């Protein structure tokens, strides 16, 4: 049996949920949620939450900036949208939902990828103009984590709405085209050294990788033109393509080629 990434990834996703829930059990390992948290005393802040709050309040808090930079550097090193593929609980929900709706034979259509950049732009400009951190109010990530932390279930209707839209209208539309956190990390991931590498000699052209990929556009330059790495920031580094590839044409790279 060969090595697979997905069990590790699923474990990480579940550990994140367990960490968010851990204060309920009286543990003092993790505090807060994915907007801002404290893991073993180290302050972590979602850089997008930092940007929104700083633009909205027009006040710079240095410790806040420090925690946001820590996270930014971390995700730069490990691939940007790695946050989406490995950490985000909403990605886990939409991923499982996608698997279910494909099994049931629902929507195959999907929207274009470039939308996250625009929602990032809208989020930041509305935060600046209106003086409220726009995405933190609407964020299904915040809503999901507060549902876990404080058992406030009602706002989860938004997550349910996302699930319904994804089943009926467009696959993975939230993560692919709408989430500004994904848009932010996509900008970061574009320049990250951790990438999926591709060997055109080994590729048999079976197309399994783009079938399982949630953002299959990112594989196109490699599959069509034989480019040796997936360079798009939209790649979530989930590793599903590497797992599915029979001929081992895909691998994890840790430097630019």
């Amino acid at each position, binding site marked *: 049996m060969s090595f697979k990434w997905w069990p590790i990834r699923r474990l990480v996703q579940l550990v994140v949920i367990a960490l968010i829930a851990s*204060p309920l059990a009286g543990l003092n390992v993790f*505090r*807060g*949620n994915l*907007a*801002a*948290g*404290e893991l073993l005393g180290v*302050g972590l*802040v*979602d850089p997008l*939450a*930092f940007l*929104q*709050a700083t633009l*909205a*309040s*027009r*006040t710079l*808090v240095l*410790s*806040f900036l420090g*925690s946001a930079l820590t996270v930014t550097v971390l995700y730069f090193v490990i691939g940007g949208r790695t946050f989406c593929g490995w950490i985000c609980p909403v990605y886990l929900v939409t991923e499982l939902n996608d698997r279910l709706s494909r099994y049931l034979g629902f929507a195959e259509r999907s929207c*274009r990828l*470039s*939308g996250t950049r*625009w*929602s990032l*732009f*809208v*989020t930041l400009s*509305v935060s600046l103009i*209106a*003086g*409220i*951190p*726009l995405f*933190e*109010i*609407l964020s299904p990530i*915040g*809503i999901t*984590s*507060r549902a876990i*932390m*404080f058992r*406030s279930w*009602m*706002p989860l*209707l938004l997550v349910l709405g996302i699930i319904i839209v994804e089943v009926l209208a467009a696959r993975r539309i939230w993560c692919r085209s*709408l989430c500004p956190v994904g848009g932010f990390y996509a900008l970061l991931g574009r320049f990250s050294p951790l990438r999926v590498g591709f060997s055109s000699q080994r590729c048999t052209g079976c197309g399994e990788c783009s079938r399982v990929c949630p953002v299959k556009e990112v594989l196109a330059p490699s599959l069509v033109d034989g480019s040796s790495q997936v360079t798009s920031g939209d790649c979530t580094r989930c590793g599903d393509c590497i797992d599915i590839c029979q001929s081992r044409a895909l691998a994890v790279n840790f430097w630019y080629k």
Partner: protein
Amino acid sequence: MDSNTNHTGITRRRFLKDGVLLPLAVAIAGGGVSTIFLRRADARGFYLRPPGALEERRFLAACIKCGKCAQACPYDSIRMAGAGAGVAIGTPHIIARETPCYLCPDLPCAKACPSGALDGKLEDVEKVRMGTAVIVDRENCLSLRGLRCEVCYRQCPLIDNAITILPRHNQRTGVHSIMEPVIHRDKCVGCGICENACVRDKPVIVVMKSPPEQKDYYEF
């Protein structure tokens, strides 16, 4: 086809769709959601914020709804607002009638705040200004009716500072006195312990938004 394609390989149709229609759709959807959903929070009434909170508008700008203040509160006084709170969804607040703020001397909630929405540098609990207690229902206040209640006064953590008792003649009976609780808004921190302690079914003393300071020309 060739006439439609320029040297970058982007068709006019695709340029219009990606560069104009999609952003426009996102902007309209975002604007629609914002105007319907994001009404001013105080349009829905006063939210009693945790100690050290900035003024409401600046608080809403700075709070990122991480819930660390609520997790830091040893009494679980701080709750996160639910779906009905509009723009204030997920922000911390205190429902004094259920659990007031007991004013921990070290203010763990304010220290837990990463974004500065709660001022972590606040050291002195007597400097906290969450709101101001007000007797809103004078007819139903037992003390004002001439009974010896004064529970709010005795429960006040700043007893004899934030609430004092003003004895005066009871004109209704002619022989008794009325022990009136008087709230001093320059001392009241707005913790809500009085609101929590009020013995009436509906509290006659509640914490409200502090009135704006005004110059006092009538000192005598």
